[in-house]
């Protein structure tokens, strides 16, 4: 960037005038209006607030967040961290928050992958593939999400009972109680290996960035894959082996009413995830298609003329430009997935809305309950927005 391109007019400061306490002074008028507007808004908020508190008192409806420390007494089917009905409302709501995040995060990842594939398929030269993608997008986008969720849930309920469970391969059972998979018994060694993998991924990322920087300086390619292999595979496995290489598979088996052991995916979670993913993927597919089509054809031809291979054309030339179009609307879709996950109450998945609703029903503190729900969605949505804005700024067109 160079100073010479800046319009010199913008550098010229306006002449300073002393502030006159007169209505004819523009600045005085501006200050008066602003104070007035802020004052009015403040007064309205104060009035609503004090009336609410007063009326709650008159009607003897309990207020405050003291209930968070009381015993919840409500059973929750799915919990990522230990929970029992004797725990507090706070912990119950925390479980609800984690359940919301569990479906939102996995939903975002799956919808992105699935949506991108469909978007690319719709641009395919293969007539059948592109028509199938087109029909999928039209059908899925035009039906209400709630209807789709109830549809998936009804289908999953139609599966056979646990005693007649579908049993495609050893250890996998599909029944109306959900999908049961074998799972390793988690031990400390596995946690260490996972930690090593995470650190390895971080190191690989920095190494790759450094390698690219050096390559820009001297033009010599430096392969990243040996480092990646070492950090992501060899090191974690070595640590796991050093910790005694524990490997006990937890097979699900039918005992009493239900399956015990193994990893369980409940029909409620599965239906919600399936519904959110397929629905949002329809929108993401169109965003991806729009993004790719937004890159002028000349860019493809220019890249090919430079001798880049088709993969390189897509990766180095087209995608970086397409992403600039894709990312902002994609943020909206991620926010939609998160907020739409609240439809879980209709099919009995205990997300934050479900648990907060039960809480406010038991305690009668509707205003506090709704405030908690709003706070949770606001926090998640703002986090997604912040992250996506940061990412958007990172990939934005850098003009040199």
């Amino acid at each position: 960037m160079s100073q010479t391109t800046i319009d010199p007019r913008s550098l010229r400061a306006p002449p300073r005038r002393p502030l006159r306490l007169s209505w004819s002074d523009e600045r005085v008028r501006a200050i008066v209006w602003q104070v007035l507007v802020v004052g009015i808004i403040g007064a309205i908020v104060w009035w609503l607030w004090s009336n609410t508190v007063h009326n709650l008192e008159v009607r003897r409806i309990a207020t405050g967040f003291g209930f968070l420390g009381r015993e919840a007494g409500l059973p929750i089917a799915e919990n990522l961290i230990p929970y029992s009905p004797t725990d507090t409302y706070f912990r119950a709501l925390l479980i609800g928050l984690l359940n919301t995040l569990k479906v939102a995060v996995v939903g975002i990842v799956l919808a992105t992958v699935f949506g991108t594939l469909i978007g690319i398929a719709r641009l395919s030269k293969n007539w059948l593939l592109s028509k199938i993608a087109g029909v999928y997008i039209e059908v899925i986008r035009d039906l209400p999400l709630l209807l789709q969720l109830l549809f998936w849930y009804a289908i999953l309920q139609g599966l056979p009972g646990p005693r007649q469970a579908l049993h495609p391969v050893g250890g996998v059972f599909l029944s109306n109680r959900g999908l049961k998979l074998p799972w390793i018994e988690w031990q400390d060694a596995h946690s260490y290996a996972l930690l090593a993998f995470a650190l390895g991924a971080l190191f690989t990322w920095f190494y790759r960035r450094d390698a690219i920087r050096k390559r820009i300086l001297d033009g010599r390619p430096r392969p990243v894959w040996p480092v990646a292999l070492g950090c992501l595979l060899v090191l974690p496995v070595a640590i796991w082996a050093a910790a005694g290489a524990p490997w006990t598979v937890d097979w699900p088996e039918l005992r009493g009413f239900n399956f015990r052991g193994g990893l369980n995916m409940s029909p409620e979670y599965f239906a919600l995830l399936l519904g959110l993913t397929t629905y949002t993927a329809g929108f993401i597919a169109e965003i991806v298609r729009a993004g790719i089509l937004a890159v002028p054809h000349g860019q493809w031809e220019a890249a090919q003329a430079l001798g880049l291979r088709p993969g390189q054309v897509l990766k180095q030339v087209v995608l970086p430009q397409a992403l600039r179009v894709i990312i902002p609307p994609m943020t909206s879709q991620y926010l939609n997935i998160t907020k739409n996950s609240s439809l879980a109450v209709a099919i009995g998945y205990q997300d934050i809305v479900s648990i907060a609703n039960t809480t406010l029903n038991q305690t009668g503190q509707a205003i506090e309950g709704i405030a908690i729900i709003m706070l949770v969605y606001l926090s998640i949505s703002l986090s997604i927005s912040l992250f996506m804005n940061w990412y958007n700024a990172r990939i934005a067109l850098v003009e040199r």
Partner: protein
Amino acid sequence: MPQFGLFLKRALGMAALGLTLALPGHAQAQQAAPANTLDAVRGRGQLVCGVNTGLAGFAQPDSQGVWRGFDVDYCRAVSAAVFGDPNKVRYVPTTPQVRFTALQSGEVDLLSRNTTWTLSRDTALGLDFAATNFFDGQGFMVRSSLGLKSAKELEGATICVQPGTTTEQNLADWARANRIRFTPVVIERLEEIVAAFISGRCDAFTTDVSGLAATRSAQQKPDDYLILPEVISKEPLALGVRQGDARFADIVRWTHFLLLSAEEFGINQANIDQMANDPRPEVQRMLGRNGELGKMLGLDNLWAVNVIKAVGNYAEIFDRHLKPIGIQRGPNALWTTTGGLQYSPPFR
């Protein structure tokens, strides 16, 4: 889809609650008498009654879309007491989770929908319970094919339960006390939790025994389902009104007592006109031939005649709606005749 309406209704209910609590000015609120329900009902010309979303025997629209059932007859009785006409009622179906908000926000005047009277609800939720019109208890229903004899055998089972109910909390307490592990499936709409149970998503369905009987009777083959013998809680189902409106609470409470007393004195829909000439002093007072009991309640002095003409006495309501689905009088028999729990204070 009924759900859309329901979600919308809930959202509106919440918004309405926020607004009603926030908006009225200090001056109005400081009179310390929250809206007078009786005047509001009279002014509107209609009683708004919160009922179940559809429970056989208690509240369910028939094939013509007319609401019928035990709880519905209580709405009709209160309407007859206030207006002399049992049909001036608008029914609002409410799920367990929205019912209290609906009452608090003024969306409904009266809750007549299988609601258990508990201390915390009575004190913290901004509502008062006028009278227990049905004594119930929580039980379990399972498929007969499972061959279960007792609820204690439910270790490891998946159990369907509606959220926001005392049932949900009792289930957790009972399981803890009996060291039974279970997986809950919680769905708000009664129709859908029942569908989940029928489809086999759950091994057992738990709610009030009367609700189990109603659900069982509504199935194509009721014999495929078995209600287990254990009753794990007390569920006094009561009529709810907004807190701080003693006058309206009195009307609802004494309408219930009237239905009990009418049964006690043998007054029914068929003989109500002859009973006006019955020489017993309490009957004379009750039916407004003597004294001004109706006026003391702020009603027409012939309110009792109107109520009994409209719905009959407690036994008639019970026999009309609950007997056909296999619910016995049990604890809901009159204390004065067969030693049950239903008992009316004197009309004096």
